[in-house]
């Protein structure tokens, strides 16, 4: 006999999330200030290099989101209890991840425009991120197909794991493809930047800050989803009472 899980949730923030919310703010604040003012400009690229402090961390976070969705989907599928928490994390991570992927593409595109005058380069990382973006749009569309939460979870976890198979193949093909054109080293935006100590620190701090932001966004989104599911369950109760009245009348 299965019953729907009804977690007791009053608000979406907890002490823990407030703590790392603050942490994210502080880290990103430093990156913002440091990135714009305290770090030097690049010898070759000038001030344009500052986009790196946004582009590289968001790219990293986008891939982190992809991994989290994959792992959470596997946990849901392979776990005996098929705990819905995993499915919610997978979905939340995908939603937040898509936003970070878009940011990566936009920042990479702007960087290319400023540095070389083109909005798009066939850099393997950028191209794979574009594919990741579209694949995750598809994943979110599959999540929206409807049905019970268990049905949705089963379908989307399989699609997420297929994406885990597909993305490395895409990346590998693109790398092989671009290597034919022998432009790879030149066109990679961060390929030829000499990293000053403070630049490296700011960059790593940026990666840290964006990752914490990611965690904050995912845990909040995941909780909202749990509340949404609880609301559906109670709406079901109401509908059942109505049905009973209908039957007795």
């Amino acid at each position, binding site marked *: 006999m299965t019953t729907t899980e009804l977690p007791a949730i009053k608000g979406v923030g907890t002490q823990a999330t407030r703590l790392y919310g603050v942490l994210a703010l502080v880290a990103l604040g430093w990156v913002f200030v440091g990135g714009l003012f305290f770090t030097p400009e690049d010898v070759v690229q000038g001030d344009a290099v500052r986009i790196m402090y946004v582009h590289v961390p968001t790219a990293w976070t986008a891939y982190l989101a992809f991994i989290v969705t994959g792992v959470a989907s596997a946990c849901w599928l392979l776990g005996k209890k098929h705990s819905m928490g995993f499915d919610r994390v997978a979905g939340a991570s995908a939603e937040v991840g898509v936003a970070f992927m878009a940011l990566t593409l936009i920042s990479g595109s702007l960087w290319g425009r400023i540095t070389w005058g083109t909005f798009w380069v066939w850099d393997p990382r950028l191209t794979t991120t574009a594919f990741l973006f*579209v694949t995750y749009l598809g994943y979110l569309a*599959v999540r929206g197909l409807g*049905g019970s939460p268990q049905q949705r979870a089963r379908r989307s976890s*399989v699609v997420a794991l*297929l994406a885990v198979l597909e993305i490395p*193949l*895409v990346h590998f*093909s*693109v790398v*092989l493809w671009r290597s034919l054109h022998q432009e790879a080293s030149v066109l990679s935006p961060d390929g030829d930047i000499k990293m000053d100590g403070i630049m490296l620190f700011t960059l790593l701090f940026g990666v840290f800050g964006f990752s914490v932001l990611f965690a904050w966004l995912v845990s909040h989104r995941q909780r909202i989803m749990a509340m949404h599911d609880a609301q559906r369950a109670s709406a079901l109760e109401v509908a059942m009472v109505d049905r009973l009245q209908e039957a007795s009348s």
Partner: protein
Amino acid sequence: MTMSVSRIAQAVAVKDLRIELRSRIVTNQVLPFSGLVMVMFAFALDSDDVLQGVAGGLVWLATIFSLFILVQRSFAIEVSDGALDSLRVAGVNPQGIFLGKSISLFVQLIALEVVLFLTAVVLYRVSLGGAGLVLLVTCVVSATAGLAFVGTLYGGLTAGARGRETLLPLLLLPVVAPVLISATRATEAAFTSNGVTVSEGWPWVAVLAVFAAVFGLGGLLSFGSLIEE
């Protein structure tokens, strides 16, 4: 009482191909469509040299566009009278259904590609040597296997309910990108266009083979879950 996967696959493949022979949808509708696409490419690109250079890519593009139609047709016959539902209710092993439909899709795709390559030879004036032919055949077989597997897999997911069919291109296009990239490079090597030698095509065929193996196995494992309600 439970039938083996291979017998189910055989029955499903034979059934699908028999239906196609009777209805002639591929021969009367899809082939002309893809032939027309090849002609439209010529209109759009308007340069014999360019066309000869990109002929390989155009054949595979036309194949992928036709893939959507073939997949949707393959599942339309299952869904129109609830046959896929009946197969599920009867507890028929979904792996057998997956393999059978992949085989029938493979056969239809091969027929399509033969026509497209002949069209390329005629319209775009590419030429093919002995070693190139071997490369081309291997490339076509492995690429088509990959396309058949992913087409059937995602076709099963998007079959049936309203508003799902439009999801097929969105899901399928990113997935077939590696096939497009690799098959095009291998085909260019086979045609020795743009100064590419035949031997440079073989690594790409390896990628195609890996793709087919990964999605053949992945499909066997996941098809059942994706057609489940």
